[in-house]
């Protein structure tokens, strides 16, 4: 199927440039790893909805972004509902259509069209008919996940489908696609007194001496912090990686750097589908696989999962 055909009534009219009619004069700047991220051209209701959704991660109104040349800016444009095909979302697994190119990325999805252009700094455009509420924040969040993944990649980091678990001093990343057990594993650790950063997406960023750090992302499934807390610690040293499987009995086996790299690649959403960024991605992931230990963990619901992790740490 050609790009956009699943989502768009007129894929031929997909925006070729960042232009159109914006929703309003509002803007929100988010301090999320890889940021800041500035959304502008917002209607008042859209701005309000984003501030409600992202809470403490939003810079106060009237500050930040305009002067910040490092911000990844996204203009939000109106698009008519008629531009998008109706999709029966019952039982539908959320998906996006991505079309990477050397210096751009086109995105088509549920009631959204977007493009990222590196010209040379990253600039984004988002076209949606959603003017307010959760429908709007959902569109924005699905777009933002992609921008964060690309921004972090450019900064030698990576976004991973993972559960991030911390004891306060350091963090583990439990890797796996949907259904692997990230949320289940997170609940088990939570019950044992650990903190869950996110049961869906976490970031790894380079720290001092290139030691990898886990950074919290506001993208969660059922568990984790979606809004950021003022004055909270932002990063935790990465202790290790576990590729999750569910099974009748616990089993732990070390992963070779190659296997760990493969697990990381499978867990790197969006950018792992981009052939133009495959090399830098693999270089980062290989470095990560060599920097921290990795295991494949088969666990059951009865597992003292957290105690397994604590045992590995000793």
């Amino acid at each position, binding site marked *: 199927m050609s790009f956009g055909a699943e989502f768009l009534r*007129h894929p*031929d*009219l*997909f*925006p*070729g*440039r*960042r*232009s*159109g*009619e*914006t929703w309003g*004069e509002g803007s929100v700047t988010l301090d999320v790893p890889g940021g800041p991220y500035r959304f502008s*051209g917002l209607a008042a209701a859209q701005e309000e909805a984003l501030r409600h959704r992202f809470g403490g991660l939003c810079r106060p109104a009237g500050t930040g972004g305009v002067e910040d040349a490092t911000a990844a800016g996204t203009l939000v*444009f*109106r*698009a*008519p509902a*008629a*531009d998008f095909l109706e999709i029966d979302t019952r039982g539908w697994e959320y998906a996006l259509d991505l079309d990477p*190119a050397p210096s751009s990325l086109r995105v088509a999805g549920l009631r959204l069209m977007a493009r990222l252009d590196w010209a040379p700094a990253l600039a984004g455009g988002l*076209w949606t008919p959603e003017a307010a509420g959760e429908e709007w924040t959902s569109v924005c969040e699905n777009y933002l996940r992609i921008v964060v993944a690309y921004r972090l990649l450019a900064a030698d980091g990576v976004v991973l489908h993972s559960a991030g678990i911390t004891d306060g001093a350091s963090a583990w990343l439990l890797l796996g696609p949907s259904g692997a057990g990230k949320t289940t594993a997170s609940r088990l650790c939570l019950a044992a007194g650990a903190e869950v950063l996110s049961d869906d997406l976490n970031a790894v960023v380079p720290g001092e001496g290139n030691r990898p750090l886990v950074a919290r992302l506001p993208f969660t499934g059922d568990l984790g912090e979606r809004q950021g807390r003022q004055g909270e610690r932002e990063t935790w040293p990465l202790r290790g990686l576990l590729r999750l499987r569910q099974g009748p009995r616990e089993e732990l086996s070390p992963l070779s750097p190659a296997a760990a790299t493969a697990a990381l690649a499978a867990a790197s959403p969006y950018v792992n589908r981009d052939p133009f960024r495959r090399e830098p991605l693999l270089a980062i992931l290989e470095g990560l696989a060599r920097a921290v230990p990795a295991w494949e963990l088969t666990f059951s619901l009865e597992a003292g999962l957290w105690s397994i992790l604590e045992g590995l740490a000793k």
Partner: protein
Amino acid sequence: MSLARLMATAWRQNLLVSVLVELTYRCNLDCFFCYNDLGLRGEPLTREQYFQLFAELRELEVLHLTLSGGEPLAHPDFLALGARARELGFVVRIKSNGHALRGELARRIRDEVDPFLIEVSLHGATAATHDRQTRVPGSFERLLANLAELRALGLRVKLSSTLTAWNEGEIEGMLDLAGALELPLQVDPEVTPRDDGDREPLQVTPSREGVLRLFRLQTERGRALGGEAPLPVRSADEIAPAPAGKHCGAGSAGLAVDPFGNVYPCVQWRRPVGNLHRQTLKEIWQGSAGLAEVRELTVRAAEVVGAHGPRASLLNFCPGMASVLSGGDPLQVYSSAVQRKELLEEVLAEEARRPLLPVIF
């Protein structure tokens, strides 16, 4: 009795004949030299406001209505607006990049809008050049395929191009391509700054030799056709009128409207003379102080141009362009206009020296 004289009357008497409406600045291509001011913000006109505008234009007896953009097909109400324009009896033109003009959309345009003409942009004779300017790979091949489809649907199409440093070596090829497609090709010899004054597009200003080559080709091809235009699809407002005491019809016989309701004397002269969110088109047409000033300026522009001697009509000078290039003075004749006049004079002199009949020894 002539069309030129009639248009001169329209200019003198401020009779609105042609209106160009930029429906949206959204576009599915990314042409390097696009003149749209992408930083412009405002409240887009609603469908009802467009219907109201069209009704007023009907009352003012406007003849030509051009739907433009950006890419006008990307406007959510394009088909409804086009159909209404057709219902009201305008001569409807669509300025499109042609990229989406195929399949169901093309058929619906034919059936529901029934435009008099679709003007489609061609940027080169090769994919390398055309796609370089549009910055969308594959756009050239797509355009050729769509042109074939449009012709099969019976839609009238004209190709338009702008001469640039990138395509100036392909003009002959582009004319040949147009000939093979049996479509007229109009080439504008001038790259303009963006409507916000940004001069980046001028980086691809064609060379003197490129402009000269274009003028020679156009003269040669016109001669080969026995002096006839390829297809008689020129609009009334494109025909240079008889002396009217004004340099052009901007604000006198024509107007342009942007997606936010700002009204301008023409698509090139970006001095807003009113806004449709605050006034009706009639109120602006009849009472705008800005428009009155523009009309006066076109009188003075005629005097400025007239001072360039007997061949002054060759000075393709635009007060709107002058305003941008000079930083605000619409009467300052800019050097590129003078240069083009000189080149035209050179080509006309060459023509004059040609023997009328082949010399047979």
